[in-house]
Protein backbone atom coordinates (compact mmCIF):
# COMPACT_ATOMS: atom_id res chain seq x y z
CA UNK A 1 0.00 0.00 0.00
CA UNK A 2 2.66 2.46 1.15
CA UNK A 3 5.34 1.77 -1.46
CA UNK A 4 2.94 1.61 -4.44
CA UNK A 5 1.28 4.81 -3.20
CA UNK A 6 4.59 6.67 -2.99
CA UNK A 7 5.50 5.50 -6.51
CA UNK A 8 2.23 7.02 -7.73
CA UNK A 9 2.91 10.28 -5.86
CA UNK A 10 6.29 10.45 -7.60
CA UNK A 11 4.54 10.03 -10.94
CA UNK A 12 2.05 12.79 -10.09
CA UNK A 13 4.92 15.23 -9.53
CA UNK A 14 6.38 14.44 -12.98
CA UNK A 15 2.91 14.66 -14.57
CA UNK A 16 2.31 18.02 -12.89
CA UNK A 17 5.58 19.36 -14.30
CA UNK A 18 4.46 18.38 -17.80
CA UNK A 19 1.06 20.03 -17.31
CA UNK A 20 2.59 23.31 -16.22
CA UNK A 21 4.35 23.46 -19.61
CA UNK A 22 0.99 24.63 -20.93
CA UNK A 23 1.90 28.09 -19.60
CA UNK A 24 5.02 28.08 -21.81
CA UNK A 25 2.88 28.05 -24.95
CA UNK A 26 1.77 25.63 -27.64
CA UNK A 27 5.22 24.89 -29.04
CA UNK A 28 6.83 24.01 -25.70
CA UNK A 29 3.88 21.88 -24.61
CA UNK A 30 3.56 19.93 -27.86
CA UNK A 31 7.33 19.48 -28.06
CA UNK A 32 7.30 18.08 -24.49
CA UNK A 33 4.47 15.67 -25.33
CA UNK A 34 6.24 14.57 -28.49
CA UNK A 35 9.60 14.21 -26.78
CA UNK A 36 8.09 11.90 -24.13
CA UNK A 37 7.59 9.43 -26.97
CA UNK A 38 11.17 9.79 -28.20
CA UNK A 39 12.71 9.66 -24.74
CA UNK A 40 15.73 7.34 -24.64
CA UNK A 41 16.00 6.95 -28.44
CA UNK A 42 17.94 5.39 -30.05
CA UNK A 43 18.74 3.16 -27.05
CA UNK A 44 15.00 2.57 -26.63
CA UNK A 45 12.45 2.16 -29.42
CA UNK A 46 9.80 4.85 -30.13
CA UNK A 47 7.53 5.18 -27.04
CA UNK A 48 9.88 2.71 -25.26
CA UNK A 49 10.50 4.90 -22.22
CA UNK A 50 6.79 5.78 -22.09
CA UNK A 51 5.86 2.11 -21.99
CA UNK A 52 8.42 1.42 -19.23
CA UNK A 53 6.78 4.17 -17.18
CA UNK A 54 3.33 2.81 -18.01
CA UNK A 55 4.30 -0.72 -16.91
CA UNK A 56 5.64 0.57 -13.57
CA UNK A 57 2.48 2.65 -13.10
CA UNK A 58 0.16 -0.24 -13.96
CA UNK A 59 2.05 -2.50 -11.54
CA UNK A 60 1.86 0.17 -8.80
CA UNK A 61 -1.87 0.68 -9.40
CA UNK A 62 -2.44 -3.08 -9.37
CA UNK A 63 -0.55 -3.55 -6.10
CA UNK A 64 -2.25 -0.48 -4.60
CA UNK A 65 -5.76 -1.72 -5.43
CA UNK A 66 -4.97 -5.28 -4.32
CA UNK A 67 -3.63 -4.04 -0.94
CA UNK A 68 -6.57 -1.68 -0.52
CA UNK A 69 -9.10 -4.45 -1.18
CA UNK A 70 -7.27 -6.76 1.25
CA UNK A 71 -7.26 -4.09 3.98
CA UNK A 72 -10.88 -3.18 3.28
CA UNK A 73 -11.98 -6.82 3.56
CA UNK A 74 -10.06 -7.36 6.79
CA UNK A 75 -11.53 -4.18 8.19
CA UNK A 76 -15.05 -5.26 7.23
CA UNK A 77 -14.53 -8.71 8.74
CA UNK A 78 -13.22 -7.21 12.00
CA UNK A 79 -16.06 -4.72 12.40
CA UNK A 80 -19.03 -6.65 10.98
CA UNK A 81 -18.93 -4.54 7.81
CA UNK A 82 -19.77 -1.35 9.71
CA UNK A 83 -16.35 0.18 10.42
CA UNK A 84 -16.65 3.15 12.74
CA UNK A 85 -20.48 2.97 12.53
CA UNK A 86 -20.60 -0.23 14.57
CA UNK A 87 -21.90 1.40 17.77
CA UNK A 88 -25.58 2.04 18.38
CA UNK A 89 -24.76 5.46 19.85
CA UNK A 90 -24.76 8.27 17.32
CA UNK A 91 -23.08 10.74 19.68
CA UNK A 92 -19.54 10.50 18.29
CA UNK A 93 -20.02 10.09 14.53
CA UNK A 94 -16.53 11.45 13.79
CA UNK A 95 -14.74 9.59 16.60
CA UNK A 96 -12.44 11.71 18.73
CA UNK A 97 -9.85 13.04 16.27
CA UNK A 98 -9.92 11.26 12.93
CA UNK A 99 -9.79 13.48 9.86
CA UNK A 100 -12.21 13.75 6.95
CA UNK A 101 -9.31 12.67 4.74
CA UNK A 102 -8.74 9.47 6.72
CA UNK A 103 -12.28 8.18 6.51
CA UNK A 104 -12.73 8.97 2.82
CA UNK A 105 -9.62 7.02 1.77
CA UNK A 106 -11.48 4.02 0.35
CA UNK A 107 -14.41 5.64 -1.43
CA UNK A 108 -12.12 8.53 -2.38
CA UNK A 109 -9.85 5.96 -4.02
CA UNK A 110 -12.83 4.62 -6.00
CA UNK A 111 -13.62 8.19 -7.16
CA UNK A 112 -10.00 8.64 -8.24
CA UNK A 113 -9.82 5.41 -10.29
CA UNK A 114 -13.09 6.31 -12.06
CA UNK A 115 -11.66 9.74 -12.79
CA UNK A 116 -8.43 8.22 -14.13
CA UNK A 117 -10.43 6.16 -16.64
CA UNK A 118 -12.38 9.28 -17.74
CA UNK A 119 -9.12 11.24 -17.93
CA UNK A 120 -7.45 8.57 -20.11
CA UNK A 121 -10.51 8.51 -22.39
CA UNK A 122 -10.18 12.28 -22.69
CA UNK A 123 -6.45 12.82 -23.26
CA UNK A 124 -4.78 9.46 -23.97
CA UNK A 125 -7.21 7.31 -25.93
CA UNK A 126 -9.07 10.33 -27.38
CA UNK A 127 -12.37 8.44 -27.23
CA UNK A 128 -14.08 11.60 -26.00
CA UNK A 129 -13.16 15.11 -27.09
CA UNK A 130 -15.13 17.80 -25.24
CA UNK A 131 -14.53 21.11 -27.00
CA UNK A 132 -13.23 19.52 -30.17
CA UNK A 133 -10.52 17.06 -31.26
CA UNK A 134 -7.08 18.06 -32.57
CA UNK A 135 -3.71 16.53 -33.44
CA UNK A 136 -2.04 18.99 -31.11
CA UNK A 137 -2.09 17.92 -27.44
CA UNK A 138 -1.99 21.63 -26.51
CA UNK A 139 -5.15 22.35 -28.49
CA UNK A 140 -6.93 19.35 -26.98
CA UNK A 141 -6.12 20.62 -23.47
CA UNK A 142 -7.19 24.18 -24.26
CA UNK A 143 -10.38 23.07 -26.05
CA UNK A 144 -11.33 20.82 -23.12
CA UNK A 145 -10.76 23.27 -20.31
CA UNK A 146 -12.77 26.03 -21.98
CA UNK A 147 -15.87 24.05 -20.98
CA UNK A 148 -17.19 24.62 -17.46
CA UNK A 149 -18.22 21.04 -16.68
CA UNK A 150 -14.82 19.67 -17.72
CA UNK A 151 -13.13 22.12 -15.35
CA UNK A 152 -15.64 21.19 -12.63
CA UNK A 153 -15.06 17.44 -13.07
CA UNK A 154 -11.29 17.90 -12.85
CA UNK A 155 -11.68 20.11 -9.78
CA UNK A 156 -13.76 17.48 -7.99
CA UNK A 157 -11.25 14.77 -8.91
CA UNK A 158 -8.32 16.83 -7.67
CA UNK A 159 -10.07 17.57 -4.39
CA UNK A 160 -10.42 13.79 -4.00
CA UNK A 161 -6.72 13.37 -4.84
CA UNK A 162 -5.83 16.12 -2.36
CA UNK A 163 -7.72 14.43 0.49
CA UNK A 164 -6.30 11.05 -0.53
CA UNK A 165 -2.75 12.38 -0.36
CA UNK A 166 -3.35 14.32 2.84
CA UNK A 167 -3.90 11.07 4.72
CA UNK A 168 -2.12 8.72 2.30
CA UNK A 169 1.33 10.34 2.32
CA UNK A 170 1.34 10.49 6.12
CA UNK A 171 0.07 6.90 6.48
CA UNK A 172 2.54 5.56 3.90
CA UNK A 173 5.52 7.14 5.65
CA UNK A 174 4.30 6.05 9.10
CA UNK A 175 3.68 2.49 7.90
CA UNK A 176 7.21 2.36 6.54
CA UNK A 177 8.51 3.27 9.99
CA UNK A 178 9.16 7.01 9.66
CA UNK A 179 6.95 8.08 12.57
CA UNK A 180 9.48 7.83 15.40
CA UNK A 181 8.25 10.44 17.87
CA UNK A 182 5.45 12.83 18.74
CA UNK A 183 7.30 15.63 16.97
CA UNK A 184 7.86 13.45 13.90
CA UNK A 185 4.16 12.64 13.82
CA UNK A 186 3.34 16.33 13.61
CA UNK A 187 6.02 17.00 10.98
CA UNK A 188 4.96 14.08 8.80
CA UNK A 189 1.39 15.36 8.91
CA UNK A 190 2.57 18.84 7.88
CA UNK A 191 4.59 17.27 5.05
CA UNK A 192 1.56 15.28 3.86
CA UNK A 193 -0.58 18.42 3.87
CA UNK A 194 2.06 20.28 1.86
CA UNK A 195 2.39 17.48 -0.71
CA UNK A 196 -1.40 17.35 -1.07
CA UNK A 197 -1.66 21.13 -1.49
CA UNK A 198 1.21 21.41 -3.98
CA UNK A 199 -0.18 18.61 -6.15
CA UNK A 200 -3.75 19.87 -5.95
CA UNK A 201 -2.85 23.48 -6.79
CA UNK A 202 -0.24 22.49 -9.40
CA UNK A 203 -2.77 20.37 -11.28
CA UNK A 204 -5.57 22.94 -10.99
CA UNK A 205 -3.53 25.86 -12.33
CA UNK A 206 -3.73 24.84 -16.04
CA UNK A 207 -7.52 24.16 -16.14
CA UNK A 208 -8.35 27.39 -14.31
CA UNK A 209 -5.72 29.34 -16.28
CA UNK A 210 -7.33 28.19 -19.51
CA UNK A 211 -10.90 28.68 -18.28
CA UNK A 212 -10.21 32.28 -17.28
CA UNK A 213 -8.41 32.99 -20.55
CA UNK A 214 -4.87 33.32 -19.19
CA UNK A 215 -3.58 30.71 -21.67
CA UNK A 216 -3.85 30.54 -25.43
Amino acid at each position, binding site marked *: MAISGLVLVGYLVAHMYGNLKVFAGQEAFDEYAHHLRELGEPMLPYEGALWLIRIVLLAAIGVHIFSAVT*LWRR*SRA*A*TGGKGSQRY*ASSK*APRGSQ*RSYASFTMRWGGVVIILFVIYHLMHFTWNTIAPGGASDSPYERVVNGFEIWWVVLSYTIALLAVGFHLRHGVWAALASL*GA*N*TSQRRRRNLNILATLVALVIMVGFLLPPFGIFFGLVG
Partner: protein
Amino acid sequence: MNITLRVWRQQNADTPGAMQTYQVADVSPDMSFLEMLDVLNEQLTLAGDDPIAFDSDCREGICGMCGLVINGLAHGPNELVTTCQLHMRSFSDGDVIDVEPWRAQPFSVIKDLVVDRSSFDRIIQAGGFISAPTGTAPDAHAAPVPKADADAAFDAATCIGCGACVAACPNGSASLFVAAKITHLGLLPQGQPERDSRALDMLAQHDEEGFGGCTQIGECTAACPKGIQLDLISRMQRDVLGALSHRR
Protein backbone atom coordinates in the same frame (compact mmCIF):
# COMPACT_ATOMS: atom_id res chain seq x y z
CA MET B 1 -28.01 14.04 39.43
CA ASN B 2 -30.63 12.15 37.47
CA ILE B 3 -29.32 10.17 34.56
CA THR B 4 -30.99 8.26 31.74
CA LEU B 5 -28.95 5.30 30.56
CA ARG B 6 -29.31 3.46 27.28
CA VAL B 7 -27.50 0.18 27.89
CA TRP B 8 -26.71 -2.65 25.50
CA ARG B 9 -28.40 -5.82 26.82
CA GLN B 10 -27.52 -9.16 25.26
CA GLN B 11 -28.14 -12.57 26.84
CA ASN B 12 -25.19 -14.30 25.14
CA ALA B 13 -23.18 -14.42 21.91
CA ASP B 14 -25.88 -16.40 20.13
CA THR B 15 -28.84 -14.11 20.75
CA PRO B 16 -29.15 -10.61 19.29
CA GLY B 17 -28.92 -7.69 21.70
CA ALA B 18 -30.58 -4.29 21.87
CA MET B 19 -30.29 -0.97 23.67
CA GLN B 20 -32.52 -0.71 26.74
CA THR B 21 -33.35 2.45 28.69
CA TYR B 22 -33.00 2.84 32.46
CA GLN B 23 -33.43 5.78 34.83
CA VAL B 24 -30.92 6.27 37.64
CA ALA B 25 -31.93 8.85 40.25
CA ASP B 26 -29.85 10.66 42.89
CA VAL B 27 -26.46 9.91 41.35
CA SER B 28 -23.61 11.55 43.26
CA PRO B 29 -21.19 13.46 41.00
CA ASP B 30 -18.36 11.83 42.97
CA MET B 31 -19.38 8.32 41.95
CA SER B 32 -17.31 6.56 39.33
CA PHE B 33 -19.16 5.37 36.25
CA LEU B 34 -18.96 1.79 37.52
CA GLU B 35 -20.33 2.75 40.95
CA MET B 36 -23.27 4.35 39.17
CA LEU B 37 -23.80 1.03 37.36
CA ASP B 38 -23.56 -0.77 40.74
CA VAL B 39 -26.39 1.43 42.03
CA LEU B 40 -28.47 0.63 38.96
CA ASN B 41 -27.75 -3.09 39.40
CA GLU B 42 -28.94 -2.95 43.03
CA GLN B 43 -32.19 -1.40 41.83
CA LEU B 44 -32.56 -4.06 39.15
CA THR B 45 -31.82 -6.87 41.61
CA LEU B 46 -34.35 -5.53 44.15
CA ALA B 47 -36.93 -5.31 41.38
CA GLY B 48 -36.21 -8.94 40.46
CA ASP B 49 -34.60 -8.05 37.12
CA ASP B 50 -31.36 -9.38 35.69
CA PRO B 51 -28.48 -7.05 36.67
CA ILE B 52 -26.30 -5.64 33.87
CA ALA B 53 -23.12 -7.69 33.40
CA PHE B 54 -19.91 -5.64 33.09
CA ASP B 55 -16.21 -6.32 33.72
CA SER B 56 -14.21 -4.64 36.47
CA ASP B 57 -11.48 -5.53 38.90
CA CYS B 58 -9.05 -3.08 40.49
CA ARG B 59 -11.18 0.03 39.94
CA GLU B 60 -8.07 2.18 40.12
CA GLY B 61 -7.20 2.23 36.44
CA ILE B 62 -4.31 -0.23 36.37
CA CYS B 63 -5.70 -3.70 35.66
CA GLY B 64 -7.32 -3.34 32.23
CA MET B 65 -10.48 -5.27 33.08
CA CYS B 66 -13.07 -2.51 32.75
CA GLY B 67 -13.96 -0.99 29.44
CA LEU B 68 -17.19 0.43 28.07
CA VAL B 69 -18.01 2.44 24.99
CA ILE B 70 -19.74 5.48 26.47
CA ASN B 71 -21.53 7.83 24.07
CA GLY B 72 -19.66 6.18 21.20
CA LEU B 73 -16.19 6.67 22.69
CA ALA B 74 -14.07 3.94 24.29
CA HIS B 75 -13.70 4.66 28.05
CA GLY B 76 -15.95 7.70 27.62
CA PRO B 77 -15.28 11.35 26.85
CA ASN B 78 -12.25 12.01 29.10
CA GLU B 79 -8.63 11.57 28.04
CA LEU B 80 -6.24 9.16 29.72
CA VAL B 81 -8.77 7.44 31.99
CA THR B 82 -10.26 3.99 32.16
CA THR B 83 -14.02 3.63 32.67
CA CYS B 84 -13.55 3.02 36.41
CA GLN B 85 -11.71 6.34 36.73
CA LEU B 86 -14.39 8.26 34.84
CA HIS B 87 -16.56 10.12 37.34
CA MET B 88 -20.15 11.19 37.05
CA ARG B 89 -19.09 14.84 37.42
CA SER B 90 -18.00 14.56 33.79
CA PHE B 91 -21.72 14.43 32.92
CA SER B 92 -24.60 16.78 33.59
CA ASP B 93 -27.92 16.31 35.35
CA GLY B 94 -30.50 14.96 32.91
CA ASP B 95 -27.98 13.53 30.44
CA VAL B 96 -28.84 10.53 28.30
CA ILE B 97 -25.77 8.28 28.25
CA ASP B 98 -25.27 5.42 25.77
CA VAL B 99 -23.34 2.43 27.14
CA GLU B 100 -22.11 -0.36 24.88
CA PRO B 101 -19.51 -3.14 24.93
CA TRP B 102 -16.27 -3.10 22.90
CA ARG B 103 -17.18 -4.15 19.38
CA ALA B 104 -14.92 -6.19 17.12
CA GLN B 105 -15.31 -9.59 15.57
CA PRO B 106 -12.51 -11.11 17.74
CA PHE B 107 -14.20 -9.66 20.89
CA SER B 108 -17.45 -11.62 21.01
CA VAL B 109 -20.02 -10.53 23.59
CA ILE B 110 -20.25 -12.95 26.52
CA LYS B 111 -23.13 -11.10 28.14
CA ASP B 112 -24.38 -7.49 28.06
CA LEU B 113 -21.22 -5.35 28.34
CA VAL B 114 -18.73 -8.20 28.88
CA VAL B 115 -16.64 -9.27 25.91
CA ASP B 116 -14.22 -12.15 25.41
CA ARG B 117 -10.70 -10.72 25.13
CA SER B 118 -8.81 -14.03 25.17
CA SER B 119 -7.54 -13.17 21.67
CA PHE B 120 -5.17 -10.72 23.43
CA ASP B 121 -3.88 -13.59 25.60
CA ARG B 122 -3.14 -15.65 22.50
CA ILE B 123 -1.26 -12.71 20.93
CA ILE B 124 0.87 -12.47 24.09
CA GLN B 125 1.46 -16.24 24.05
CA ALA B 126 2.68 -15.94 20.46
CA GLY B 127 5.62 -13.71 21.40
CA GLY B 128 4.98 -11.26 24.22
CA PHE B 129 7.57 -12.78 26.54
CA ILE B 130 11.31 -13.22 27.02
CA SER B 131 13.03 -16.54 27.65
CA ALA B 132 15.22 -16.15 30.74
CA PRO B 133 16.38 -18.56 33.42
CA THR B 134 14.31 -18.09 36.56
CA GLY B 135 15.67 -18.41 40.05
CA THR B 136 17.78 -15.84 41.83
CA ALA B 137 17.24 -12.34 40.52
CA PRO B 138 20.31 -11.09 38.58
CA ASP B 139 22.19 -8.04 39.84
CA ALA B 140 20.35 -4.88 38.83
CA HIS B 141 23.43 -3.50 37.08
CA ALA B 142 24.34 -6.73 35.27
CA ALA B 143 22.63 -5.56 32.07
CA PRO B 144 23.07 -1.79 31.64
CA VAL B 145 20.11 -0.01 30.00
CA PRO B 146 20.33 3.58 28.72
CA LYS B 147 17.98 5.83 30.69
CA ALA B 148 16.12 6.98 27.56
CA ASP B 149 15.46 3.35 26.52
CA ALA B 150 14.33 2.39 30.01
CA ASP B 151 11.89 5.33 30.09
CA ALA B 152 10.51 4.57 26.61
CA ALA B 153 10.17 0.86 27.43
CA PHE B 154 8.32 1.75 30.61
CA ASP B 155 5.97 4.08 28.73
CA ALA B 156 5.12 1.19 26.39
CA ALA B 157 4.81 -1.23 29.33
CA THR B 158 2.03 0.87 30.84
CA CYS B 159 -0.34 -0.76 28.28
CA ILE B 160 -2.89 -2.63 30.40
CA GLY B 161 -4.34 -4.60 27.49
CA CYS B 162 -7.87 -3.26 27.98
CA GLY B 163 -8.72 -3.30 24.27
CA ALA B 164 -9.87 0.32 23.93
CA CYS B 165 -7.60 0.68 20.88
CA VAL B 166 -9.57 -2.05 19.09
CA ALA B 167 -12.91 -0.61 20.21
CA ALA B 168 -11.97 2.83 18.86
CA CYS B 169 -10.29 1.73 15.62
CA PRO B 170 -12.45 2.15 12.47
CA ASN B 171 -10.60 -0.91 11.11
CA GLY B 172 -10.94 -2.99 14.29
CA SER B 173 -7.16 -3.28 14.47
CA ALA B 174 -5.19 -4.15 17.62
CA SER B 175 -1.95 -2.72 16.22
CA LEU B 176 -1.44 -0.30 19.12
CA PHE B 177 -1.66 -3.14 21.65
CA VAL B 178 0.76 -5.34 19.69
CA ALA B 179 3.09 -2.38 19.09
CA ALA B 180 3.17 -1.54 22.81
CA LYS B 181 4.13 -5.10 23.74
CA ILE B 182 6.75 -5.36 20.98
CA THR B 183 8.27 -2.00 21.96
CA HIS B 184 8.27 -2.68 25.69
CA LEU B 185 10.36 -5.85 25.27
CA GLY B 186 12.26 -4.83 22.14
CA LEU B 187 13.81 -1.73 23.73
CA LEU B 188 15.45 -3.72 26.55
CA PRO B 189 18.54 -5.96 26.30
CA GLN B 190 16.58 -8.92 27.70
CA GLY B 191 14.20 -8.68 24.75
CA GLN B 192 16.83 -8.82 21.98
CA PRO B 193 17.23 -12.59 21.38
CA GLU B 194 13.57 -12.98 20.41
CA ARG B 195 13.06 -9.54 18.87
CA ASP B 196 12.63 -10.74 15.28
CA SER B 197 10.44 -13.76 15.98
CA ARG B 198 8.38 -11.73 18.45
CA ALA B 199 7.43 -9.12 15.87
CA LEU B 200 6.52 -11.67 13.20
CA ASP B 201 4.73 -14.13 15.52
CA MET B 202 2.67 -11.53 17.38
CA LEU B 203 1.61 -9.83 14.16
CA ALA B 204 0.73 -13.20 12.58
CA GLN B 205 -1.40 -14.09 15.62
CA HIS B 206 -3.03 -10.63 15.52
CA ASP B 207 -4.07 -11.23 11.90
CA GLU B 208 -5.10 -14.82 12.65
CA GLU B 209 -7.49 -13.64 15.38
CA GLY B 210 -9.33 -11.52 12.80
CA PHE B 211 -8.27 -8.00 13.79
CA GLY B 212 -8.11 -5.45 10.97
CA GLY B 213 -5.04 -3.73 9.53
CA CYS B 214 -3.69 -0.35 10.67
CA THR B 215 -4.25 2.65 8.38
CA GLN B 216 -2.68 5.24 10.73
CA ILE B 217 -5.90 7.04 11.63
CA GLY B 218 -4.91 7.47 15.29
CA GLU B 219 -8.24 6.84 17.06
CA CYS B 220 -6.50 4.13 19.13
CA THR B 221 -4.03 6.49 20.72
CA ALA B 222 -6.77 9.07 21.38
CA ALA B 223 -8.79 6.44 23.26
CA CYS B 224 -5.88 4.79 25.09
CA PRO B 225 -6.22 5.33 28.86
CA LYS B 226 -2.44 4.95 29.22
CA GLY B 227 -1.43 7.41 26.49
CA ILE B 228 0.37 4.82 24.34
CA GLN B 229 1.58 6.84 21.36
CA LEU B 230 1.08 6.20 17.67
CA ASP B 231 4.82 6.19 16.93
CA LEU B 232 5.03 2.74 18.56
CA ILE B 233 3.17 1.38 15.53
CA SER B 234 5.94 2.72 13.26
CA ARG B 235 8.42 1.04 15.60
CA MET B 236 6.55 -2.23 15.23
CA GLN B 237 6.63 -1.84 11.43
CA ARG B 238 10.40 -1.32 11.62
CA ASP B 239 10.80 -4.48 13.70
CA VAL B 240 8.64 -6.42 11.24
CA LEU B 241 10.55 -5.09 8.21
CA GLY B 242 13.85 -5.81 10.01
CA ALA B 243 12.74 -9.33 10.89
CA LEU B 244 11.70 -9.99 7.29
CA SER B 245 15.08 -8.83 6.01
CA HIS B 246 16.95 -10.99 8.56
CA ARG B 247 14.89 -14.08 7.77
CA ARG B 248 16.97 -16.95 6.43
